[in-house]
């Protein structure tokens, strides 16, 4: 049956083409363009997903981005569908799928389809570079508008890019779309979550929203796609089963009459404020993009996850001295809070519900009254254990699906294991060497499981990290290091115990940039592990290209600068890899570069001999 369809279709097409050719003689350029378009469609249509809720609730589109079955869609498609869903592909087969990661503010969700046979690869589409998209470029939108296709073959609409870097306010209950692509290809309900392709068949966006104002809920010539470059920033978080939060600078800006963006308010506990930004300063650029309007400001911020650290350039004018100074700083971004009321615009009227504040880390709202329960909170019968995808789901507060966090976490812990076995070593680790910058001093450090000592420039520092009532000043010794003693303690604990050393929390944190030498230019894209132990919160940075642990940050208090350590010069020491260069930074300033000369991780030479 399928075969015959396949056989007749090209024949019919050929026949039609011939007929059309005879009738109106299509110029070769048009025929060529058409052929290219058809080739692009043929290349990617297999990767387009029709998403359905298991209980018949919800529905939308998606696109496969990896052979293992990871697919992107909209949050507002997954949200009503629940934790498990059914996904149809153009091959006509219905697959089971599980929710992996959620970005409610950005309206993105990652799901994973289960192959029919284990290990069988899925067709998938490559992600393009949405920064290269220009107004006037042709695009192909694919998906399942109005849930028309019962055989799951995608509907394809064709159009132009009407605008780029568009900002769409979170009007009413609508989610915020930042830096998005505006298109005139028809986007209708059901297209949500589907891919927007360029004519090379690369994904440049995820279609998710339209301006539906006057015509009810159908296309009015304005559709929006979330840019794929924004999604790439969040992809690590999504793959790690996180419930993603977006970022804010913690400042309010206004554009003045001369077109400058000026800070009018700033949160005192924001990193931007700690880095010097204040009311009256002019924002020049953020993350390398010039700031020309409030929309652009929101655009640029909107594409980054909470916690990312990015370069900010601001200008300060001193009226009295008539001087202007330009400052470049690296700023850690605050979160916006993911529990905003998020929902695709419902038929009017829109109920106005004041958002309920929630502190980060606080449990999500209990099920019941919320205007929009978090996915999976409404326990549909179908949602229980009977999905084959159920074994890929693990509930944990604050996560979309902890199963996938565990997966990514264990992968990175595997990288730590590659450094060697640091278990059952001496009760006290001794390190000796030189601080080479800013001035040369000798140093010795001894790290045990409950005490850290450091001698630097003949000064002695000591810390009992877990002593109750230890003052913050002590936890941050030596002065201006932000807590080097504490960092060394946490470092040993991490190498020795791994996950088990962090009793409060230990999870994979997705992608983040790291700046090995503290400058914007030194950026290295990393993956992060987060660990919380006692009063310390630590982020471990692994280089994405090779999985190398290249540094960490230890916080002694929330909303306070961490002690940053960059590892360098890894060398083999008795079967273990140990960095021999530690750069220590705090609050944007170098504390020093420490070069390791000798180290004693085992008890004593005789202890070594005792080993069989």
């Amino acid at each position, binding site marked *: 049956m399928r075969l015959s369809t396949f056989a007749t279709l090209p024949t019919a097409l050929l026949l039609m083409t011939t007929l059309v050719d005879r009738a109106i003689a299509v*110029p070769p*350029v*048009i025929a*060529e*363009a*058409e052929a*290219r*378009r058809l080739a692009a469609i043929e290349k990617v249509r297999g990767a387009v997903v029709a998403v359905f809720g298991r209980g018949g609730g919800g529905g939308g589109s998606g696109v496969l981005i990896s052979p293992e079955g990871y697919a992107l869609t909209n949050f507002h498609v997954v949200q009503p569908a629940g934790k498990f869903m059914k996904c149809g592909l153009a091959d006509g087969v219905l697959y089971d799928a599980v929710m992996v990661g959620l970005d409610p503010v950005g309206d993105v969700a990652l799901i994973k389809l289960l192959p029919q046979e284990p290990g069988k690869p899925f067709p998938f589409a490559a992600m393009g570079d949405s920064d290269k998209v*220009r*107004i*006037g*470029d*042709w695009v192909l939108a694919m998906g399942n508008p109005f849930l028309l296709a019962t055989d799951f073959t995608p509907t394809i609409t064709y*159009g*132009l*890019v*009407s*605008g780029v*870097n*568009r900002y*769409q306010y979170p009007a009413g209950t609508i989610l915020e779309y930042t830096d998005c692509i*505006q298109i*005139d290809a028809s986007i209708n309900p059901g297209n949500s979550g589907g891919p927007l392709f360029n*004519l090379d068949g690369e994904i440049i966006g995820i279609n998710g929203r339209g*301006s539906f*104002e*006057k*015509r009810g809920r159908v*296309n*009015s*010539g*304005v559709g929006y796609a979330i840019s794929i470059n924004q999604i790439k920033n969040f992809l690590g978080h999504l793959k790690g089963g996180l419930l993603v939060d977006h970022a804010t600078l913690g400042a309010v800006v206004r*554009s003045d*009459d001369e*077109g400058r963006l000026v800070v009018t308010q700033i949160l005192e506990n924001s990193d931007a404020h700690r880095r010097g930004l204040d009311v009256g300063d002019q924002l020049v650029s953020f993350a390398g993009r010039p700031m*020309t*309007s409030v*929309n*652009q400001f929101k655009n640029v911020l909107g594409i980054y996850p909470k916690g990312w650290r990015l370069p900010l350039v601001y200008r300060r004018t001193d009226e009295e001295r008539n001087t202007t100074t330009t400052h470049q700083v690296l700023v850690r971004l605050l979160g916006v809070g993911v529990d905003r009321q998020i929902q695709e615009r419902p038929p*009017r*009227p*829109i*109920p*106005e519900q004041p958002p309920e504040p929630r502190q980060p880390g606080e449990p999500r709202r209990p099920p019941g009254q919320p205007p929009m329960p978090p996915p999976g909170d409404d326990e549909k019968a179908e949602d229980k254990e009977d999905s084959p995808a159920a074994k890929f789901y693990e509930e944990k507060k604050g996560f979309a699906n902890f199963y996938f966090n565990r997966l990514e976490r264990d992968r990175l812990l595997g990288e730590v294991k590659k450094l060697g076995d640091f278990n059952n070593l001496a009760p006290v680790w001794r390190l000796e060497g030189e601080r080479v910058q800013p001035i040369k001093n000798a140093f010795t450090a001894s790290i045990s499981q409950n005490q850290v000592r450091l001698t630097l420039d003949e000064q002695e520092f000591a810390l009992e990290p877990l002593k109750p009532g230890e003052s913050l000043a002590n936890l941050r010794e030596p002065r201006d290091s932000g807590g080097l003693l504490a960092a060394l303690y946490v470092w040993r604990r991490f190498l020795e115990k791994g996950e088990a050393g962090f009793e409060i929390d230990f999870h994979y944190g997705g992608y983040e940039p790291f700046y090995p030498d503290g400058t914007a230019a030194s950026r290295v894209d990393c993956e992060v592990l987060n660990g919380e132990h006692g009063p310390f919160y630590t982020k471990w940075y692994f280089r994405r290209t090779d999985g190398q642990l290249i540094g960490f940050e230890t916080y002694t208090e929330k909303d306070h600068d961490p002690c940053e350590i960059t590892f360098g010069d890894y060398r083999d020491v008795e079967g273990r890899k140990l960095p021999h260069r530690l750069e220590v930074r705090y609050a944007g300033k170098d504390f020093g570069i420490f070069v390791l000369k000798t180290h004693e991780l085992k008890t004593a030479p005789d202890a070594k001999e005792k080993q069989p």
Partner: protein
Amino acid sequence: MTKRFTTILALLVWCLTAPAALADVSFAEVVRKTNPKIVKVYGAGGFRGVTAYCSGVLISPDGYILTVYSPTLDTRELRVHLYDGTRHACELVAAEPQLDVALIRIKERERFKDLPLDYFDLSQPPPEVRVGDWVLAFSNLFEIATRDEPVSVQRGVVSAITPFAGRRGIHEAPYKGKAIIVDAITNNPGAHGGALTTRKGELIGLIGKELKNALSETWVNYAMPISELRDFALRAMRGEYKPVERPERTQTADKKPYHGIVLIPDILDRTPPYVEEVVPGSPAARAGLRPDDLIVFIRAPRPDSPGEMEERVIASCKAFKETLAGLDPGMTIKVIVRRGGQLLSLDLTLEQNPVR
């Protein structure tokens, strides 16, 4: 190395021989060249659902702008944002309500002497437009772009070139000339005054207001051909334009009360009476009605004994029309609406139907 060179050469030859000017080539270059000729216009309105913004096209290097005539222009605070994000105060030069078109200009035009603006040259007749031609539409629909952000561009095909009678709510549209009907959804809020161009970016029409076809009650996507507006624009720029004396349309002997509420299209048996739009300056606007209000009750004088008030449930658009039809200009009624989660009671004084 040689191989790469040959490939490049081959590519070059291919590029030269295959005139890729066509079919699926990006419009990015046309858009880049056309965008500086479009302005974002900001004026009166901006409350109760009336857009305070529209679009306009530059037709001289020193800041003359052709746009659609609307109440938005009726202000001393008229401003435009040019493509580069600069803001300029503007003034109305001439308006031709019968053509639904107006000419405005930037007040301080001196600065453009040395730095002339890109513009559409109307001194030559516009290219001929035929049904089936591809067109591009440039406008700031939905006010998506601000400051230096490029206006939106859409692509369509000319479906028809025909006279059409449009209307909006209770108003008949004044423009009765030919319209270029397109298949793209171009006529959205704020799009009026935008440019309809050929695929090469030549101006062929001015995107009109949002109108419905008076015959079919369907939204129409159209532009007024530049050929119809050119005479007005050129004369108005020279300061020679005098409004054409036209016989004033006499008011029909209707004594229907005027309120200025435009409800959503009545497409169901019982379409809930949501307010779609409130005509600016109308009794409804003064009463404080807003788009998206749901009319729930009306307290009005009894038809049989106007001294007594009675409250009627307004369950549908039809019920609203029937209720209002029984009332007379001059009466003050209470309109009870649901807005958000609240019920609001608004006093509305009905008026005579305005005369154009």
